[in-house]
């Protein structure tokens, strides 16, 4: 059985929108608001190798759904690598929300005690700007306290600013095996090929896991923009039943290459010296690929993923 990433939260907290945005899934209107989300078997979203993303409405359903949830509990919470729990910051039933969260944690402790727990305080754009930090800090304290003995990492998010992208990038960063080694080698790679900037993306979501830049760049939002552009392109490709593999963008001032890298990642290389021919850079990337694949397979603490990769 596959390992899963659970995306849970109260009905209406924003899980479907979040999945759609992060994983570039089309949301058809009729599939929403038909009661609680029952999403297990039909989820095709895989990332980080063999993780399956499952959405569950937790709390607030009718008794039928409650019973179904309770009866399926062990199935749902077994083999969980990651629990991402979403709290709607505007919710008026904080006690109830915490109660449901805690019961999910209990189930996790019983069935998948090694799982990582992340809490997202979502829809922060609805809070006034000067109060956001304060409110988030309060929630974070409560959540950390309630989550013991499990450790949870909290983020504040909104689909209308960069916080969503950054939160998920951090989450994915913690899930990539040997990520620090990857980063060191990435820097070496970049310096060898004289690239201006090199980015490492997670394959399914195009979240930036790691990057190297040799000088200051102006646009702080460029990672999210690239991610949005490529995801739109992937949506277009999927309409043709094609899948995106690689891309080269070039003008008189720069050349950028996006290509498959390891089984979990994509790489983007930006060269500002236009005299270097594309072929050279592509060969370099290809050679580096083999080296990085080996790196990913080297034993590290989180190798449950690697087992399934073979």
């Amino acid at each position, binding site marked *: 059985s596959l390992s899963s990433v659970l995306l849970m939260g109260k009905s209406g907290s924003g899980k479907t929108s979040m999945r759609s945005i992060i994983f570039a899934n089309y*949301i058809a209107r009729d599939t929403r608001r038909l009661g609680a989300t029952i999403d297990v078997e039909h989820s095709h979203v895989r990332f980080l190798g063999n993780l399956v993303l499952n959405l569950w409405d937790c709390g607030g359903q009718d008794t039928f759904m409650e019973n179904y949830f309770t009866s399926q509990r062990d199935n749902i919470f077994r083999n969980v690598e990651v629990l991402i729990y979403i709290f709607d910051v505007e919710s008026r039933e904080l006690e109830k929300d915490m109660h449901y969260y805690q019961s999910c944690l209990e189930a996790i402790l019983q069935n998948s005690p090694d799982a990582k727990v992340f809490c997202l305080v979502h829809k922060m754009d609805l809070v006034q700007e000067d109060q956001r930090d304060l409110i988030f800090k309060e929630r974070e304290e409560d959540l950390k306290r309630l989550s013991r003995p499990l450790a949870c990492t909290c983020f504040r998010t909104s689909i209308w600013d*960069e916080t969503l992208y950054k939160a998920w990038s951090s989450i994915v960063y913690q899930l990539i095996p040997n990520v620090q080694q990857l980063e060191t080698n990435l820097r070496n790679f970049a310096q060898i090929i004289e690239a201006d900037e090199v980015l490492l993306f997670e394959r399914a979501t195009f979240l930036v896991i790691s990057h190297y830049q040799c000088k200051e760049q102006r646009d702080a939002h460029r990672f*999210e923009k690239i991610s*949005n*552009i490529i995801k*739109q392109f992937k949506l277009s490709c999927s309409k043709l039943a094609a899948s995106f593999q*690689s891309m080269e963008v070039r003008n008189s001032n720069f050349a950028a290459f996006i290509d498959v890298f390891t089984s979990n990642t994509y790489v983007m290389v930006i060269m500002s010296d236009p005299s270097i021919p594309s072929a050279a850079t592509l060969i370099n990337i290809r050679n580096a690929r083999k080296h990085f694949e080996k790196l990913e397979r080297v034993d590290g603490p989180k190798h449950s993923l690697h087992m399934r990769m073979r």
Partner: protein
Amino acid sequence: MNIHTFLNVPFHVEPRNIVDNDPQERVSAEAAILNSRVHYYSRLTASSDRLLSPPNHVIPGPEELYIYSPLGTAFKVTGSDPSSKNPSIITIFAIWNTMMGTSILSIPWGMKQAGFTLGILILIFTGLLMLYCCFVVLKSPKAIPYVDTSDWEFPDVCRYYFGKFGQWSSLIFSMVSLIGAMVVYWVLMSNFLYNSGQFIYNYAHDVKMSDSEFGTNGSDKVICPFPNTNPRGNHSMGTLYLGNSGNETSSSDVSFEHWWSKTKTIPLYLIPLLLPLLCFRSASFFARFTFLGTISVVYLIALVTLKAVHLGFHLEFHWFDTTQFYVPEFRLLFPQFTGVLTLAFFIHNCIITLMKSNRNQENNVRDLSVAYLLVGLTYLYVGVLIFAAFPSPPLFKDCIEPNFLDNFPSSDVTVFVARTFLLFQMVTVYPLLGYLVRVQVMGQIFGNHYPSFFHILALNIIIVGAGVLMARFYPNIGSIIRFSGATCGLALVFIFPALVHMISRSRQGLLRWPSVLFHSFLIVLGIANLLAQFFI
């Protein structure tokens, strides 16, 4: 299948010089990234789905919005775009202007039918009731989830809740109010044209008409055009409404009467003037003249004030009994007044569109209330002053005509000016109303606003024919107004808004018993209003 793409032209351009370290940015970073997000999110849902649309608090202010030209330069959005927003005062004025129709001429008559005190109470009560129903109509598109209702009007809301039936019935009832208004316009235009022509003829031929009509003496003459239809009146008194009763009945006067008759010939004279105007393809030319309506109403208010000052007040309070000169304060004929008021306060078929251009949408409720208050005060002012100033000792209060200008002879100069103003204004509004009818009817039946000249001509002949027939055989605008008001009010003011409100609340799970009772009572009131027009 894999695609190795060699892109020559990036599909996302920000006008920025990437070679030099030019500090000048034409686009703010937040706007640029929001643009990227909006682009991307719009790919994830259907175009009418609001789920991933940016909410208002997320969109930058207009000073940060840019329009890109294909050459890469960016222009700032300067102030007013085509759908510019109006401050509250303009919105209030637009609503007041739209609601002020010819029903203002019937308010004194309606007040007389209901009784003075009861009339005032009914005016306030009906105004409040219709204001509440207007709120319901205004809020109805917003309660619809997951659909973009930004360009919906109330018939679209009815279609959402009641399907084809809702769409067609709201259209038909809307037509009733429009065509009713057009028929009233024809009757009034015939009336005003007649009186204006009479005035000019009498002025030119120096004919004095002062003895031939039953009315007061003196300079501010008020007449009672149909004295022996007054059931309380002394039948021996007063002459019939005739032309000259003087000795000099010249043959030219008689033939003038023959060719210039309010009901027989003038309605036909208007046909060659107005039928061509109705057939114009676009009505935007006539929209320029809407200011005439405002001037007419202001002039009417001034006229009413002037007459009241000259005539003085003649009020006696007889609560339930009828006297020769006065009417009781409370009369059983009051449903006729509610019928008139339903049309007088009617704006429910276009309030959503009118309010859309309000700059501060959160003030919509307040602005609508202020508009209704002003309209109510205007009607109240005209009604009370005309009723109170009507010289009762020689005349009967029951003489107040459904068009109160009919109570003044055609020789009265100030009223002549009012009639001419109104005539000119109506001639310019009539094609606008015809255009609205045409757009809705043709649009619904044929899907095209101008299928062919013959379709339009046929429709216009029907409308004009109805007007001519009414002007010929039944020129009582009070009745036309109350019947069409009660009919269209039944659906568009009472039944549909109440049902829509109850259904949307029950879908949200917020429907409570007091609300059900109250809204069902509204529906009962609407039905009673219509039935009472027939039986009372």
